[in-house]
């Protein structure tokens, strides 16, 4: 049995998969990956099921070492400087670590979360059909908590498959699309307009439960208390201070603040990847458009295996890749203790 040892890892990193829907009526939130497309791409690279458990790595770096055999990893999501023994490694590609080799991962660039899938999957005991970490509920396997240095993820011996890369559609730097509701009637038209016409930033105090937004104050028509009702991942609730909070995969299953709008499923992963402090906008779309987009997104997920390419077709120029990764994105270095964004360095 091979294993991947976490030599070092920053906070906000955990084992995640497709989550555990089905028990929200008991207050148990599904959890699961922040960026499902990136999780699915990482898994596809190593021949796993789309939503198999993988490592979700937060904005900071990590080092991962193969022990007791080789492991093959699929890297996707927010790109980072990556190398194995000084050899640069590309994202959206697979890489093999020989026994004893270490993958060094730098800070996330142009995003927040990267996914490292392990060929053969992660050995663990599913609870409600999932290995995803939900620390509050004591769930997650092999560890019911975020990953720490010294943790070991066991996996099966690797196949003799060739390394591969995956061609993903260029993600547009377009506004994050939302549909209004369920409680948009708790807001005056001018406040709904303010919400979709303003520039927003994600606060550094955000986490897997919720992303706090910084921007104009959105005021309520009838106060900020409603009778608690159900939430979804992507619900945008507006508490008393008028600064919206977007509910993320570890949200509470119910909440008592009016929800002005909901991020559409197709854009949720792209939203989750927005770095703290980076300006972005929302755009309201119709239910019909949202439902067309969610079907396209499902089709994109389904088509991932067809998007695999041999690595030799790559003309691998990692330096060029690295530059491409950085282009247009300032690197927001975030202090691990405070989650405060330091001066842009890139």
């Amino acid at each position: 049995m091979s294993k991947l040892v976490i030599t070092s890892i920053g906070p906000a990193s955990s084992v995640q998969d497709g989550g555990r829907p089905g028990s929200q009526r008991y207050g148990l939130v599904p959890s699961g990956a922040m960026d499902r497309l990136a999780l699915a791409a990482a898994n596809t690279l190593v021949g796993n099921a789309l939503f198999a458990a993988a490592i979700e790595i937060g904005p900071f770096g990590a080092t991962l070492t193969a022990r007791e055999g080789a492991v093959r990893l699929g890297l996707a999501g927010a790109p980072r400087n990556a190398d194995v023994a000084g050899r640069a490694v590309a994202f959206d590609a697979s890489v093999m670590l020989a026994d004893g080799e270490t993958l060094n991962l730098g800070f996330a660039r142009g995003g927040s979360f990267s996914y490292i899938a392990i060929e053969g999957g992660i050995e663990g005991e599913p609870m409600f059909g999932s290995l995803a970490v939900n620390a509050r509920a004591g769930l997650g396997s092999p560890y019911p908590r975020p990953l720490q240095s010294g943790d070991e993820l066991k996996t099966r011996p690797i196949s003799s498959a060739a390394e591969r890369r995956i061609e993903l559609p260029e993600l547009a730097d377009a506004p994050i699309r939302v549909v209004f509701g369920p409680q948009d009637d708790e807001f005056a038209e001018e406040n709904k307009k303010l919400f979709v016409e303003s520039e927003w930033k994600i606060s550094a105090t955000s986490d897997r439960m919720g992303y706090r937004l910084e921007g104009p104050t959105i005021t309520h028509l009838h106060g900020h208390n409603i009778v608690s009702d159900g939430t979804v991942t992507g619900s945008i609730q507006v508490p008393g201070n008028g600064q919206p909070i977007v509910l993320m995969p570890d949200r509470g299953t119910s909440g008592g603040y009016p929800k002005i709008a909901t991020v559409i499923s197709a854009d949720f992963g792209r939203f989750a990847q927005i770095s703290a402090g980076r300006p972005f906008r929302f755009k309201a779309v119709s239910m019909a458009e949202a439902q067309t987009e969610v079907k396209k997104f499902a089709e994109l997920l389904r088509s991932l295996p067809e998007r695999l390419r041999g690595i030799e077709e790559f003309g691998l120029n990692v330096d060029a890749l690295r530059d491409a990764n950085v282009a247009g994105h300032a690197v927001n270095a975030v202090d691990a203790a405070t989650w405060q964004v330091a001066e842009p360095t890139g």
Partner: protein
Amino acid sequence: MADTLSPPRLLPSGDSAITVEFSRNIDDAANRRVLALDRVIASEPIAGITETVPTYRSLLVHYDPVQIGFDALGEQLLERATKALPTAAQTRRWRIPVAYGGENGIDLEDVAKALNTTPDDIVKRHTAGDYRVAMIGFTPGWSYLSGLDKSLQMSRRKDPRLLTPAGTIAIGGVQTGVQCLAGPSGWHLLGCTAVRTYQLHRDPIFLLEPGDAITFAAVDDKTFAEQTRAAEAGEFVAELIAP
């Protein structure tokens, strides 16, 4: 009867969920309709629905938009909602033991003072109540109960506590509740129960269902300690007294 079967509002909760709202307020009649619709969907499933989440006043219906669209699902939900009669369905009834006051219920004395009575009288009123699980939400097993005596209704704390113990029995506004996991709360803490409404590696993991009837019984500290050990060993501790 015509009143109670007025159509609910269908509110979009993104592209993969619909909130079926029967009332904007905490309203027992609305909650019964929520639970009735939930039962009807369970017994006559609609293809594409992935799960339902009953709350005080609405049913959140999660669905797969690849299988069914908002309009088609909304139509079927409306049809079922106007037909789903709240019935006196067979209800499970649980008796939940509570150690009131002292370190188990640090707000009991203040609540008594605020309501110009004694702690014993507060316990008497709280254990006299006939409650129903209106919803379970926020965190695993957090059970919100309707049926709190009007004389015990008081506004929530101005400063919510960041950490309240597992098993807390508290009151807030018109509600009382059983909190399973330690966590933040703005309610007034009357006592603590050894009952775990959510416990891994126990069958069932979740003890209570929305719609279950609940009564509370006061126990002394010694019994509470024994029951805590029993609960840790996987016993329900709560007594199923009906059906």
